[in-house]
C-alpha cells in the first residue's frame, strides 16, 4: 500500500492523503489535527518543519497464532502384538 502526506501549513492543517489505505482514510481528524501543531495555550507553533512524504510504501501483514488446550479421551486398540504371550509362554 502507499500513501502520501503533506504537512506544510500547520494552521490550515491541509494535510492530504491520497492512495492511502482505507484505515487511514477513515481516521478522525480530531485525534491528530493540531496535536503537535499547537502549543498548550492554543497558539500555533510557527516554523513547523515542512514534511512532505509521497507514496511511502507500508509493508503490512496479518498473522494468527492459536493457543489451544484440549483434553482428549481415546479408544485404543492395542493390536495383535500383545496377544503373542500366553501365561508367560510364547505362543506359536
Amino acid at each position: 500500500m502507499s500513501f502520501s502526506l503533506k504537512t506544510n501549513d500547520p494552521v490550515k492543517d491541509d494535510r492530504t492523503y491520497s492512495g492511502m489505505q482505507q484505515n487511514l482514510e477513515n481516521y478522525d481528524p480530531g485525534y491528530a489535527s493540531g496535536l503537535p501543531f499547537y502549543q498548550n495555550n492554543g497558539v500555533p507553533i510557527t516554523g513547523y518543519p515542512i514534511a512532505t512524504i509521497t507514496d511511502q510504501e507500508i509493508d503490512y501483514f496479518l498473522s494468527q497464532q492459536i493457543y489451544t488446550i484440549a483434553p482428549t479421551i481415546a479408544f485404543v486398540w492395542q493390536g495383535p502384538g500383545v496377544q503373542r504371550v500366553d501365561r508367560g509362554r510364547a505362543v506359536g
Partner: protein
Amino acid sequence: MSIGGGPSVSIINYVQHYDQILVFVNDGVGFQRRVYENNFLGFGLKLDVGAEYFVLPRFSLNAGLAYHLIFMTNLLEVDASCKTTGDYYYSESLRAVDAFGLNPFQLPDGRDLTYDLLSANYLKLYFGATFYY
C-alpha cells in the same frame, strides 16, 4: 491404533504488522514499525486418530492426525495492544493518536478485525517418539 476426541479452549491471537507507518515524533514526522495484537476466545472440538508402533519393548514411534474445530467468540473484551510502543487500546473507539488516527481494530482494506475474521479450524499431522519407563 487410537481414536479419540474432546473439548478444547483456544486463544486466538491476531497480530498486525505495519512496517514504516507514519507517526508524529515530537514536532516532526517519522516512521515507525507498529505491531498490534488482538486476542479472542474460542471453544471447539478436537478429533484425533493416531497409531503407535513399538520398535522396542519400551520405545515406540507414533504418528497421528488431529482436527481442531474451533468456534470463535467475542466473549473477551475487545481490546488491542501495541507491542512496539506498549500502548493499550481498551475500547474499539480508541485510535493511535500519534499515527494519524490509525485504527488498531481495522485492517488496511477497511474490514473490521472481528473475532470471526479468519477461520481457526486446522488439521494437524504429528509424529513422535515415546520411551516408557
